[in-house]
Each structure stands twice: as C-alpha cells, then as structure tokens.
C-alpha cells in the first residue's frame, strides 16, 4: 500500500520562515519509516504539501480539502497557526474523518474544541507555558515585568495566561501591550514599554518577526536589561543576533529533557537543516506518531488508528527516541507496546495535547544554556 | 487614447493616486529618419502637397501646401476643423504624412521627429499650454534654450528688450502671470532657441484687444528682424493686414492663396471666412 500523509503548513504568509524546517522534520520521520520497510507489511509513505498561508482560512481549507479529497491523504501533519488549524479541522478534517496532528498550533482554544478524537498536537497549550513562565520569574525573584506580545492568538493567549498566572503569584505586570509583526518601526512600542517600566521585559513574539525588532529597540535605548523569552523567541537566530547583548536573560520553550532532543538535532544536522528551529522537532514527532499508530492499529484508516495514538504516545511501553522508529515498528509488529518519547518527550494529556515539558534556558557568556526543565 | 478608455474617466480625479494634470499628446519615442536634399528654388520653409491624418484615422489634410519666405509673415486662416492646427503639426512633424514633404532651408526634413526639427531651427508656440507654469519666467526661457550649449545671456537680453513686460517678471512663476503675459513668455521661450523660423498657433486666442495689438506689434517686429513667421489666426482681419502671404484652408485643402491684401480684397473670401 502507498500511504499518503499531508503536510499542511504556512509555506507562504506570516510565518513562512518557520515552515521549511518543520516540513523537513516531518519528512525525516517518514523517510526513516520508509527505509525500515516495516510499516504495515512494507507499505510506503509519501507526502503531499498544502500551503495553509497561516492566515487565510479560505485558502487553507481549500488546500487541505485538496489533499484530503483529491490526494486521499490518511493523516495530516498540521496545521501551523491556530486560526487556520481550527478552520481546516472544522471544515475538512472532521467531515472527512481525517486525523490531524499539529506541531505548532498552541492556542488554548484547541484544548476544548469538538474534534471527534481526530485532533492532536505535539506542542502544549499556551495556557501551560504562561504558568511555567510565571513560575520561572517568581523563582528568580522578579516582581514586576512589562509584557509585549505579537498580535495574534498565540501571542495574546500566551500573554494573557502569563499575566493571570503571574499576578496570581503576586507579580505585577506594568503593561501588557501588543506589537504587530512586519511593521516598519517599533520605536513607539519600545518607548511605551520603557515608560511603563519593570524589572524585565517579556517578549511573547517571534524571533524572525517583530520580536527581534522590539528586542533590538529595547536593547539599543537601554530600556530594559533583562528579557524573558517564550518559545517563539527561543531559537538559534536569537543567539546569532543577540547572544552577547542579552547576558542574563532567560526563557523557556517546550523541549524535553535529555537525549531525544539532542539526538534529533544531530540527525537534522546530518540531513542538512536546523533541528533546533521552533516546532521542527514537534513536526517530526507528529509524523512519527501518525505512522506508529497506523502500525499499532494495523490500519491506515484514520477512523481506526486515531484510537491508538494516545496508546503509542504514552506509557506503558518501550521508550522510543528519534531515529528509533524502525525499532519501534519492530516492537509493534512483534505485538509489543511502545511509549513514543521522540524529540520533544511526547506525553499526550487531556484531549490529546502535549503535556508540556519546558526547558529553561539562560544566556551566559554569549551562549544559550539550558539550566533546567519544568 | 487607443485602448485606454476602460479607465478614461475612472479614478483619474483621485489626487492621491494619479496626478490629475493632463499628460502630453506627442509620441516622444519616434525616431528621426534621414535628412534629404532640398530642391532648387524652394522657399525658406515649405510643406508641400501634404496629405495625412492622426494615427490610423482618416486623412485630415489633402494635398495641402504651406510655405514661408525669409523675413515674411505667412498666415493660415479657415473655418473650425479645417485642419489649420493639423497643418502646423504636420510641418512640425507631430503627425505622419502619407504624402508630401517638408523642406527647410534647402534640406528635406520630412523624416525628422519634432525634437530634431527644433534642433534644425524651427521654433513652435502651441495654441494652449505653451508655458511651464511652475518654473520661473527666467527658467522658462532657459528651457527654451535647452538645446544650446553656448552662452544664452545675450539672447535673453535681446528677448527682454523685445518683451519688457516679461523682463519685469523674470523671477516670478510663469503660472502666476495673466493670459497676455503668458503669451509673451511663450513667444519669448520659442525665441530663445534662436530659431530660424517661428511658428505660432493662434497666439491671440482669448486675449484682450489691447494685448492682441501688442502681440501683433511684436510679431511684426520679429519678422522685420529677419525671422520668418508662420501663424494660424482666427482674428482674420487683423492678421490679413500684416500678412505677406495668406492661406485659406477648407477641409484640409488649400482654398485660396495670396498676399493678405489680395485676400482681403476678395469679396467671397471676406464673406465666408473672415466674418465680415
């Protein structure tokens, strides 16, 4: 059998720069499975891309509709942004009964959505990250912060959940204001944040977009010395551009402790892309989960294998790291049980979303260091 | 305006997207052809047996001949739409002739484009839009001398002598002048090239009688200075008085030709074309 998987990401549009490493991650998992030749009696898996544009719900649904009804994909790695994911889920995946595993849609709204058990995500809800970030700040004894967020559901949701958690823990948010991505100039935003003041600045944005602009402005004008970076900011680009200037700043992103991630990054490097880019590892895991579940349920029919996803992802069973998909298939084919850990320490909770292990990072001596996991 | 009428009057009023000032009408991309030999016994300028029209439209001019000699004033008159302006444009190379030739000073310039005719010594003052409104009067004159690389101050002094009213306003934007003053600036601009021929299209249209007299005075002075003048006039009676040669055009054809005096004396011409 030739099994088709869809990769529905925003290849053009607001987050177009994040899409390629994600696509590469998903493809790497599929490659691995194909090479093993162990999936469902030697079935091969091929991929079909759909450009969801991240923002345009109409274009996204049409594109996903195409890969579902015309190409006949059996599962989708995607979508990318929460809004577009909700639209395609409601309009395409649900009616057609297709499994979607999103690597990067982190909106809390997706936790409670009516999904017929078809929707999963390998990234945690932002609600969780807000709590984690608040804890980190409190543990470091920082009592007042200014917050700026990228003006979309991700940024807003994260900023709000953070503010709630932080204030509940006794902190003060001096200002919680939005910045739009791709704007010509951020002086006004930086000025406003500086005027509001605070011991640190939380930048809930994207490093490739407005987040960098805000950070640049805040550094140059000396408005803040310490910055807090959530997942959208934590990336190599941040280190490349700012490492020496943000000494002592810190942040967190969903990433599991241990070998899985390191291994994935090494594999990615061999394959010629940057595995530490945001959500690349999550995309790998999403694809791996779909394929392992197919194997576990013995069927590529979404209606059947959707039931196995939670089993594969969670305990009990043998822990599976990136690069061990072949081994996992062997175990499954042999009737064994696996606990897929993958690159991001996958642990699906609730309605099928990552429980969220976050690594806490800090900038020391011009480099990003992992100081702990939460 | 071929092909553009889908947009002709849409959105063009919106000053935030287009500049509502009218654009030019002359095809500026046409290239000149070779210059040929003149013919023996030619007048200084002759547009001979010209036939042609605009673009692919019907012929407007039919075998029409216009000529002017050194130091003379030649006047073209005729009813509206007779093709007077068209004849001037044809002489100036602003439309393609299907037949006939234009010869200037012993050379056949039929194939030249308007830019090169300016360089060949022709000066033209259009009927309307004949100044650069936002440039000062002095800059208007400098632009008139654009093709010259030598010192233009002397010519400018001469022009100022000829048109004292223009000299007074030399630092003012030409768009702020009155209609009569504008006409004088327009003629001055054409003189700045030091042309060997001056062509005027209705220089007195819409100007008051006193300015008209003034302009005619200047034109006579220019002609007596040795520069041949070819002009179109609706104020036919005054024009006939000063014309050394006059052409009556009707429907693109030469209807009557003679000296101004002769035509004024011709009862039929007077009644049908000169309105009196």
């Amino acid at each position, binding site marked *: 059998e030739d099994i088709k998987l869809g990769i529905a990401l925003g290849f053009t549009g607001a987050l177009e720069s994040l899409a390629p490493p994600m696509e590469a991650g998903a493809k790497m998992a599929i490659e691995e499975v194909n090479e093993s030749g162990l999936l469902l009696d030697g079935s091969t898996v091929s991929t079909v891309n759909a450009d969801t544009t991240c*923002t345009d719900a109409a274009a996204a649904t049409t*594109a996903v509709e*195409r890969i579902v009804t*015309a190409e006949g994909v059996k599962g989708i790695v995607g979508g990318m942004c929460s809004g577009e994911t909700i639209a395609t889920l409601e309009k395409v995946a649900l009616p057609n009964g297709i499994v979607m595993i999103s690597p990067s849609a982190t909106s809390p709204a997706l936790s409670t*959505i009516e999904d017929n058990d078809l929707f999963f995500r390998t990234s945690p809800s932002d609600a969780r990250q807000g709590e984690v970030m608040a804890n980190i700040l409190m543990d470091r004894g920082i009592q007042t912060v200014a917050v700026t967020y990228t*003006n979309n559901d991700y940024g807003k949701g994260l900023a709000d959940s953070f503010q709630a958690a932080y204030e509940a823990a006794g902190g003060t948010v001096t200002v919680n204001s939005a910045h739009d991505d791709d704007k010509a100039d951020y002086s006004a935003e930086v000025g406003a944040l500086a005027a509001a003041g605070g011991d640190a600045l939380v930048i809930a944005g994207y490093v490739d977009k407005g987040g960098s602009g805000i950070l640049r402005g805040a550094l140059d004008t000396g408005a803040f010395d310490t910055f807090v970076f959530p997942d959208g900011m934590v990336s190599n680009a941040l280190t490349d551009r700012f490492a020496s200037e943000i000494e002592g700043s810190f942040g967190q992103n969903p990433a599991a402790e241990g070998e899985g991630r390191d291994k994935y990054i090494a594999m990615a490097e061999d394959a010629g892309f940057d595995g530490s880019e945001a959500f690349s590892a999550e995309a790998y895991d999403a694809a791996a989960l779909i394929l392992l579940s197919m194997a576990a349920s013995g069927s590529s029919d979404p209606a059947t294998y959707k039931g196995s996803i939670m089993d594969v992802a969670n305990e009990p069973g043998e822990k599976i790291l990136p690069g061990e998909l072949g081994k996992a298939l062997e175990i499954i084919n042999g009737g064994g049980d696996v606990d897929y850990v993958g690159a991001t320490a996958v642990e699906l909770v609730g309605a099928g979303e990552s429980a969220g292990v976050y690594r806490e990072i800090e900038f020391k001596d011009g480099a990003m260091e992992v100081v702990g996991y939460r | 305006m071929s*092909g553009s009428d889908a947009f002709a009057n849409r*959105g063009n*009023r919106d000053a*935030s997207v287009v500049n509502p000032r009218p654009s030019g009408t002359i095809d500026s991309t046409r290239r000149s052809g070779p210059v040929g030999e003149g013919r023996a016994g030619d007048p200084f300028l002759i547009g001979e047996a010209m036939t042609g029209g605009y673009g692919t439209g019907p012929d407007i001019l039919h075998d029409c001949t216009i000529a002017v000699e050194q130091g003379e004033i030649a006047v073209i008159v005729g009813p509206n739409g007779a093709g007077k302006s068209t004849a001037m444009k044809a002489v100036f190379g602003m439309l393609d002739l299907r037949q006939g030739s234009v010869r200037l000073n012993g050379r056949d310039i039929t194939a030249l484009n308007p830019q090169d005719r300016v360089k060949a010594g022709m000066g033209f003052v259009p009927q309307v839009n004949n100044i650069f409104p936002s440039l000062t009067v002095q800059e208007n004159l400098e632009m008139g001398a654009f093709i010259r690389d030598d010192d233009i101050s002397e010519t400018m002094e001469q022009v100022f002598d000829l048109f004292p009213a223009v000299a007074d306003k030399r630092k003012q934007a030409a768009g702020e002048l009155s209609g009569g003053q504008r006409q004088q600036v327009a003629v001055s601009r054409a003189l700045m090239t030091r042309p060997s021929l001056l062509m005027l299209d209705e220089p007195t249209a819409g100007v008051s009688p006193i300015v008209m007299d003034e302009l005619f005075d200047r034109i006579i002075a220019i002609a007596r200075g040795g520069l041949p003048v070819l002009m179109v006039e609706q104020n036919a009676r005054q024009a006939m008085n000063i014309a050394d040669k006059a052409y009556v055009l009707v429907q693109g054809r030469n209807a009557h030709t003679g000296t101004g005096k002769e035509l004024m004396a011709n009862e039929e011409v007077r009644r049908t074309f000169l309105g009196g």
Partner: protein
Amino acid sequence: MSGNRQVTSAASRWRAPVLFLILAALFFAEGTFRNAMFSGSWNISLAILNMGLISAITALGLNMQWGYAGLFNVGVVGFLALGGLAPVLIALPPVEGAWGAGGMRIIAALVTGIGSLALASLVWRRGRGKVGALATAGVLVLGFFLFRWVFDPAVAAIEANQSARYGNIGGLGWPVLLSWPIGGLFAAAAAWAVGKVALGLRSDYLAIATLGIGEIIVAVLKNEEWLARGVKNITSIPRPVPYEIELQRNPDFQSFANSWSTSAAEASGIWVKLCYMSLFLVVLLAIILLAELALKSPWGRMMRAIRDNETAAEAMGKDVTARHLQVFIIGCGVIGMAGAMMITLDGLMAPTSYNPLRYTFLIWVMVIIGGSGNNWGAVLGAVLIWFLWIKVEVWGPELIGLLTAPMPAGAVKDHLLDSAPHMRFIAMGMILLLVLRFAPRGLLPER
C-alpha cells in the same frame, strides 16, 4: 480622441457566453479529471467555486464603486472584515454575564463618542476661522476623554468575564442568514462615515483614506477583544446548512450517497457545498439583477455622465458628491455582505487573516481583469482569478519543476524548487500585466 469611437465587433456578443463556458469547463475538469493539473474531486471544485462566488460578490461591490463611479477604494479588506463581524454579533449565542458586566456602559460610551463627533461637526460648521477650529478641537479632545472614561471600565469588565473561553460581548443568537444583510449595513455605515469625510475633501483623497481606514478597521477587530475576542478568534460560528457529520450519520443520506456510488463522507461534503453554493448564487444573482436594472436606467445614465465629466454634471444639477457617497455606501454594503458570507462559510473569525494583499489587491486584480464597469465581467474575473489563485499552489511547483528539470542539481535548483510557493504572487502579477497590455478593458469590456 479616436478612442471614443468604440468599435463593437460582432464577436463581442459571444464573448461573454464563451468565456463563461470556458470557466465552467475549468471547474468541470477540476471536478472530474485527475492528473497533474486537476484534482478530480468535486469537493474541491465546489469549494473553490463557493469562495469564488463570494469573491464575485466582493468584486461586484468594488465594481460598482470603480466601474460606475470611478471611486478608487483600496480599503476593501476593512469593509470585508467589518461585514464579517455581523455573524459573530448576530448569530453567536449570547455570552453569559457579558451584558451585565458592561454592555450598557459600552453602548453609553459609543453614544458618547458618536455624540461628541456630531457635536464637533456641528461646531465646525457653525464656527468660523480660528475660533471655530479651536472650539472643534476642544470638543473633540473633551469628547475623547469622556469616551475613554466611560468606555475603558466596561471593556475591562467584559474582557474579564470568562476570559479564557469568551471575554467578548457575545451575539444575539439570531439566525446566521440574517447577519448577511446586517454585515452589509455595518460596512455601509462605516462607508458613510469615511465617504462623508474623504469625498468632501477638495481634491479627492479617497484612495489614501480608504487604505488607512481599511487598516484601522482591521486593527480595531484585532485589538478590541470585547467585540469579537480580537486575535483570539471566534470559532464555531453557526451555519445555515447542515453539518457533514450529521449527514453522514443519517441513514437516509447514506443510502442516497450509495445510490450515487460515493462514500457518505464525500457525498456529505459535496452536499453541504451545494447548499452553500445555492445560497451564494441566489444572493449573487439578486445583486446582479438589481445592479443591471439600476445601470440601464436614468440613474445609470447619470452615473455615466458624472464619470465622464464631473464639473459638467455638477453644473447640470447633479449632486456629484451625494451620488458618489451613495455609490460608495452601496458598494461597501455589498462588500460587507460578502464579508459576512465569507465568515459564515469559514465558520471562523480570525482578524489576523485580513491581509490587504489578499483581500484588497487581489479583488482589484479580479475587477480589472474581468472588465471594469461590467457586472458580468467582475463575476467572471473574480471566479477565474480565485480559481487560478488556488490552482497556482499546485501548478506553480509543477511549472518550476518542469522549467528546472534540465538544470543540474545544485543549490540554485533547490532554491528555485523551494521558492515555488511564491509563484502565486508572480503569477497574479503577470496575469494582471498581460491583461492590461493585451485586453486593457478587461476580458469582458463594458458595453
């Protein structure tokens, strides 16, 4: 002025039917043939068509403004977005506690705001010179602070109400179809305000004003969380048509699907899309009918006269500004209605998706390519361009693949292959330029 002599060739009578037939053939091919070019799925074909129909209504609205009156509206995205607000405020069930938290106060604030604007304009009209200007400014500033004083607490209260799930004022729970005309009204009201100011400026600065207002409307939708949850998006907006899942569960429908030898899943998708399609078609045809009636009457003649020569029309007793305002409002109303329909179709209100490139300039491309001034042209252009916009996603990479096939493998080739998605913009630009060059009056020129 040779352009005024318009040659109406005999072929032009057949032009429209032939082009529409070709368009229909494209959709047919998309639905039936399965190859590198087409998907062979009726679900897709109909999905493209449905969005195409909405684009067609948007294009009709723009065509009224541009084609009939020559008004250059580059704020389409804003009016679309505003129309999209209607399904949220009309069809969504009310949010518990939201009205109690601050509904009344919000209304009071809006009344204050509009009142002070009205007062300011009154003062402005009465007053003269510097004193008048100062007084107007004073009223505006005072009004602004008063407005903020009433408004801000209400917003805070509403947004605090169940902020994780709602945080917005909620809807009225009325049928979603009702929200379509109401969306039109929303946009028309905004158009009235914009037109009143912009069309009154001495030189027409409508384009830049609409460009700005479009952005401002989208910004308001993004940031005013109490209204429609801002960037946190509203999902699960009620539908006027059945849900696929319900159809699939319905045994009657299953047997119906079987009788067509399709799976229930596929048939349900097609069925739902056909339902939408009929609704959209009804609206579209009604708008075209009314538009054509108006255009072929003294009103249309008056509009043509105004377009030909405003000064003369004004001197002939036609109130040009009022007519412009009228057309602008009607056009925006139609655009707003399309916006409401689009949100209904999407089931999702996501303000971040309103991007001017896609929702303003692409609509412009549709109108220009179709043939400005011609209603059928606008429809043809819209559906065709939308079809291409979607299909370029597939055709672009194929084309690049074909073009790069002879190239040696390497960085350049990889780069080109990776860049295939951007073919969309290049293709749209090329099509626009080619049409402007070879059929400057559009595919279906105005008669």
